[in-house]
Every structure is written in C-alpha cells, then in structure tokens.
C-alpha cells in the first residue's frame, strides 16, 4: 500500500495495491491506523484503483477506519471503486454514510 500525505490539506491517501481479504486486511489495517493516528487527517481517502479483488474483509476494514477517522472529526472517502468492489460494499449499506468518488486523480499540485 502506498501512503501519500498532503500536509497543508491534512489529507491522507491510501493507495491499496493488493487483493483485500481476511489475510491481507490485517496488514493494511495496521499500516492505515498507524498513519491515521500520527497524522490526524481532516480527510482520509482510500484509492481502490489497483484492487482487483475484495471480499467482506474490505467492509470491516473500511468501517473500522471510518470510525477511527470520525472519532476526531475527520472524513473518509472511497475513490476509484470498480463495479465489482461496489457490489460488495453495497451489501453492507455503508455507502449510505461513506461517499465514493470515481475518476479520482491524486496527481495533485504541491
């Protein structure tokens, strides 16, 4: 997973680049929590552009990071979610509270 910090915007981007299941999600969770807790971002973005597979472990992963970010008033957003992944998220209803942005590019200035 690539991690990008945009210090001025208090923005944290996680570019996940592996399959998300029970096995891999624990490592992703630990890394994400470490970054979120030390950086206390206003916004956390999970970029799924390079995720080819996700099962329900992804739902738990996102709900957990949503709660953590929310606990100090930060927002969480999902970007570049393929239809395949969206179907899994839709099962859980979390898309009612967590927004998805498509065609997101983080080639941000600065």
């Amino acid at each position: 997973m690539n991690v990008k910090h945009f210090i001025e915007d208090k923005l944290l981007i996680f570019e996940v680049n592996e399959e998300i299941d029970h096995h891999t999600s624990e490592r992703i969770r630990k890394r994400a929590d470490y970054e979120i807790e030390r950086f206390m971002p206003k916004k956390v973005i999970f970029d799924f552009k390079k995720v080819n597979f996700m099962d329900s472990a992804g739902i738990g992963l996102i709900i957990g990071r949503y709660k953590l970010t929310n606990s100090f008033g930060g927002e969480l957003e999902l970007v570049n979610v393929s239809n395949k992944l969206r179907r899994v998220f839709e099962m859980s209803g979390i898309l009612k509270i967590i927004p998805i942005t498509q065609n997101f590019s983080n080639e941000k200035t600065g």
Partner: protein
Amino acid sequence: MKNIKNEMKMEFASKSANEAFARVSVAAFVSQLDPTIEEIADIKTSVSEAVTNAIIHAYPNKDGVVKVRALLYEDEIEVEVSDTGEGIENIEEAREPLYTTKGNLERSGMGFTIMENFMDELKVESIVGLGTKVTMSKKINKALQKNTY
C-alpha cells in the same frame, strides 16, 4: 439427473494465506464453462467468504484442514467448502446480515449474505463439535444463452 462434467477436490491447512489459493483455484477450474467476468468474480468472492469462515470460526485456536470440492455441470458449478471444526450452534442466526461473533477482528458479518446474493443457492449444514459444510451453486453462461435467442 444432472450430468457431472468434471470434478475436483482439494484440501489445505486452515491458514489465511490459503484464502487466495482456494478462490483462484476454483476460478481456474470453472473457467472450463466459459463464465463471464462477473460470474467469475461472484464465485471467487463467495469461495473466499466460505473458506475464510472455516479458517476463522471452525478452527479458532488450532490448525485444521479445509476441504473444497467443485462439481461442474453443463451450465452450473457447485462448490462445497467443509471443515471438521467447531460447528455452528445456530445457523439461522449466523446467516443474518451483520451477525458476527468476531467483531474484535473487524469481521463485518456479511459473509453468508454475500454468498447468498452472489450465488444462486446456498445450503449450510453443521453439527456442533463435528464440523460445517457449505454448499453453493451458480448457473453459468446466462449471458451466452441470452445471445442465442
């Protein structure tokens, strides 16, 4: 009677690294039926859920063996995932969306709901102390059939 076209069985240690191995193996096997990309994705996700359940719930404190059997029919796949672990006390409750006994592991409780929705049929049999068998099936090539009309 449905004719079995092909069959495979595999068994592996209940280690989480094998979740990917199991779903990729079943996906490779079903490719003989020429499924759509969506159908393969649905099957992979469902197998991943069933195998993860076996690894987490059947053998919480020890290593065990998870078995996967897949049968191919003319236009259908049936997958069995079984273990000889702890078993499920209340299957109805376990199948409820969001029900989980492993909230501490951030399990979402959506495993059975996903299997139900992504496959056509799902059967769960379990005996406490003896093990669990999940059987699920899905019709393949619906898209192809549509094209021939």
